[in-house]
C-alpha cells in the first residue's frame, strides 16, 4: 500500500465523517473526489476491502434498482456490503462508496456505462452485470455503438471479470461476443418463454450485430429484447445460464421462477414493476446465487425492499395514492406506460420533462415514445405536461391525440387530481433532474398529511 493511497483514503474518510456524521449531509461524491485528487488510483487500493469480491452493474435502465436489490440480498445473506445506493455512478461516487469501514465482504457498484472504462481497470470486479442497452441522451453518451465499444474495452482491461449479461438483448449479446473473443467469461440470463406481450416500438437493434441482416424473433418481451436470431449468419440468443420461467406480469407485480439447471427452481415475486423488472431480478438472482445467497434470504430482501429513491415510490397525499417513477428515455417511458395501463383504475398522469445536463439537453426522444397508447384508454382521465420542456411535451401529446395542460407546480397537479374519483391514483413520471426535488416535495406533503 503506497503512502499516497493511505493519505487519499484517510482524507476521503475524514470528509465522509464530517459530511455524514457532523453535517448529516449525503456523502456520495465529495469524499471520493478528495481521495481521487490525492491518489487517482485510490479505487485500485480500496478494492481489496471487499474480501469476497465485487460486482459492477451497468445498463441503460434498471441499474439503481438492480444494485440496491442485490446489495440487500447479499446483506440478508449475512454479508457486509459496500454500495453506491443512491446512484452516484461515476468514479468519485464509486470511490466514495468504497471508503467507509475497515473491511467488507462484497462491493456492489452501480456504474455509468461510459465510466466503466475508468472503473473496471481499477476495481477489477468479479462480475460485470450488463442489463440492457437503449438509446439514451445521445448528445452526451453518443450512439449506442460507442457505448458498446467502451464496455468492451473496459472488460479487456479487467480480464478476471466475468460478464453476466442479458441474452435477450442483441446489443448486450453483441458486447458479449466481442468480449468473449478477447478472453472474457460470459454468462447469459433471459426469459425463456413467450409472454404474449404486445410489442412496443423498437427503435434500435433491428439488425444483426455481426452482419447487418434484419433480425427475426420467435417472440419479444419488450423493446428489442426477446428470442432473436439472425436468419443469415446465426447470430442469436446464447445459451441461457439463468432462465426465467412461468413468468407472470401485470397488475403492478411480477412472479417467476429462475432455473439455473443445477439447483431447484427458485421462485421470485415482487409487488411492483413490469416485465423489465423480471430481467433486473434475474440478474440479481444470478449474482446472489453465485455469492451463496439462498432463495429464502433473497425473498426476504425483496419483501423488505423499499428504497425510497423515487423508483416506483408510493405516496398517499390527502388520501390519494400517488406513484412516482423515473422515466428518462423512450424505453423507460414506454415501460412506464405499460405499467400504468396494467392498472385498470381511473387515473391521471403528470409527465415532467427537464433538459438539464444530466437529463440530456435534447428532448427529441419524446417523439419515440408511444403516448398514443394513452390516448385510446378510457381509464386515463387526463394527462398533464410539466418540467422545463412542458411545452414540447404538450405538443407531442397534442399530436398523440391528447389535450394536456401545462402544469408546472406539483400543488396544481395534486389540485387537478381532486377531480378524480376517490382512491384513483395520480402517476408522476419524471426524468432525472426533476426526480429528487419532486420526491422531496411529495415526501414533505405526505408527512404534512400524515
Amino acid at each position, binding site marked *: 500500500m503506497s503512502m499516497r493511497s493511505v493519505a487519499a483514503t484517510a482524507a476521503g474518510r475524514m470528509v465522509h465523517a464530517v459530511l455524514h456524521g457532523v453535517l448529516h449531509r449525503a456523502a456520495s461524491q465529495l469524499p471520493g473526489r478528495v481521495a481521487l485528487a490525492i491518489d487517482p488510483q485510490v479505487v485500485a487500493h480500496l478494492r481489496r476491502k471487499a474480501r469476497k469480491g465485487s460486482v459492477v452493474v451497468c445498463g441503460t435502465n434498471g441499474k439503481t434498482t438492480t444494485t440496491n436489490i442485490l446489495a440487500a440480498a447479499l446483506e440478508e445473506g449475512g454479508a457486509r456490503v459496500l454500495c453506491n445506493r443512491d446512484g452516484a455512478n461515476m468514479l468519485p461516487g464509486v470511490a466514495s462508496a468504497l471508503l467507509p469501514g475497515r473491511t467488507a465482504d462484497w462491493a456492489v457498484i452501480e456504474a455509468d456505462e461510459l465510466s466503466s472504462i475508468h472503473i473496471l481497470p481499477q476495481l477489477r470486479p468479479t462480475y460485470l452485470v450488463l442489463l440492457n442497452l437503449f438509446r439514451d441522451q445521445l448528445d452526451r453518451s453518443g450512439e449506442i*455503438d460507442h457505448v458498446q465499444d467502451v464496455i468492451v474495452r473496459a472488460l479487456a482491461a479487467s480480464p478476471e471479470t466475468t460478464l453476466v449479461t442479458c441474452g435477450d438483448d442483441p446489443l448486450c449479446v453483441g458486447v458479449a461476443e466481442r468480449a468473449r473473443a478477447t478472453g472474457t467469461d460470459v454468462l447469459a440470463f433471459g426469459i425463456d418463454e413467450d409472454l404474449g406481450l404486445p410489442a412496443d416500438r423498437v427503435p434500435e437493434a433491428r439488425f444483426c450485430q455481426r452482419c447487418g441482416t434484419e433480425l427475426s424473433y420467435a417472440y419479444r418481451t419488450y423493446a428489442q429484447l426477446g428470442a432473436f436470431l439472425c436468419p443469415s449468419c446465426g447470430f442469436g440468443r446464447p445459451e441461457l445460464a439463468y432462465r426465467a420461467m412461468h413468468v407472470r406480469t401485470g397488475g403492478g407485480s411480477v412472479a417467476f421462477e429462475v432455473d439455473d439447471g443445477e439447483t431447484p427452481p427458485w421462485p421470485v415475486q415482487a409487488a411492483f414493476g413490469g416485465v423489465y423488472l423480471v430481467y433486473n431480478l434475474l440478474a440479481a438472482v444470478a449474482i446472489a446465487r453465485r455469492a451463496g445467497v439462498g432463495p429464502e434470504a433473497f425473498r426476504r430482501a425483496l419483501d423488505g425492499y423499499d428504497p425510497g429513491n423515487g423508483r416506483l415510490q408510493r405516496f398517499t397525499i390527502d388520501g390519494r395514492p400517488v406513484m412516482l417513477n423515473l422515466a428518462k428515455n423512450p424505453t423507460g417511458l414506454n415501460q412506464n406506460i405499460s405499467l400504468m395501463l396494467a392498472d385498470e383504475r381511473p387515473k391521471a398522469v403528470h409527465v415532467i420533462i427537464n433538459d438539464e445536463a444530466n437529463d440530456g*439537453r435534447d428532448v*427529441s*426522444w419524446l*417523439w419515440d415514445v408511444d403516448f398514443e397508447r394513452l390516448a385510446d384508454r378510457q381509464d386515463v382521465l387526463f394527462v398533464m405536461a410539466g418540467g422545463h420542456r412542458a411545452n414540447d411535451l404538450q*405538443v407531442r401529446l*397534442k399530436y398523440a391525440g391528447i389535450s394536456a395542460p401545462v402544469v408546472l407546480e406539483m400543488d396544481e397537479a395534486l389540485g387537478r387530481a381532486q377531480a378524480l374519483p376517490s382512491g384513483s391514483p395520480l402517476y408522476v413520471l419524471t426524468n432525472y433532474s426533476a426526480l429528487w426535488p419532486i420526491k422531496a416535495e411529495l415526501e414533505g406533503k405526505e408527512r404534512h398529511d400524515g
Partner: protein
Amino acid sequence: MASGRSLRVLHLYPELLNLYGDSGNILVLRKRMEWRGLACDVREVHMGERATLAGTDLVFIGGGSDREQRIVCDELLAQRRELASFVEDGGVLLAVCGGYQLLGHSYLMGEEKVRGLSLVDLYTDRGSPRLIGNVVVESRIAPQPIVGYENHGGRTHLGKGVESLGRVLRGHGNDGLSGEEGCLYRNVVGTYVHGPLLPKNPGVADWLIARALERRYGTGELEPLDDADELAANETMRARLLGTSRFGRH
C-alpha cells in the same frame, strides 16, 4: 372540409434513419393535412425496395448513425436519377441531419469520402468538435424562427448560388462559421435541425404541404390551424435561447 384532395408522402428507410424521433415529422405532416380535410397517404420504403416517385408528393429522409447512413446511401445511389428528376420537377423533399448530408456530392465517413446523391450543389467534410446544442434559425419559409437541436461532426458547404435555409440566430448551423444553416433548393429543404423539426415549427410543415399541394393541384392555399401549443413551444425555447426570457435560463 372534404376537398377530396390527397398527398402521398414517402418515408425513406424509417427502420434505419430514426436516430432522434425523426418519425415525429411524418406524424406532424399527417395530422396537419388531416386536420384540414386533406388525405395523407404515407408509404414507407424499406431496405431492398425502390422508392416509387411517380405519384409521390413529398419525400422525407431522416438521420441515422454513420453505419446506417452508409447503408442508405448505397441503396439510394442506385435510385439517384429518379430522385434527381423528382427534385428538378419541383417535388418536395425534407432531409434532416444525416439525410441532409446525403443530398450533396459527398460526405466523410471516417477518413473515407462517400459519394452522395448530388441532388443539391453542396458537400460535407468534417471538423472538430462536434457541433451540438439548441439552435435558432431565421428562415424565409417560416413566419417564426425555426427552433430545434443539432448534433453533427460534419461541416456542410453550399455551392455558389445555393440558398441556405436561413441565418443562424443561435447555435452553429452548416459549418459553425458561415452563420448559415441548411439548404433551400427548389422545393428541397435540408437541415441539421435533427429529429422532430416540424412539431415546434409548424410554419415549415405548412410550407412543405403548401408546395406539394401547389405542384399537384395548382394552389397551395392552406386553411389556418390553431397552433397555440406549437407556437408556445417555439416561443418558450426561442426566448430562452435568445436571452429574452424573463427567467433567463441558459
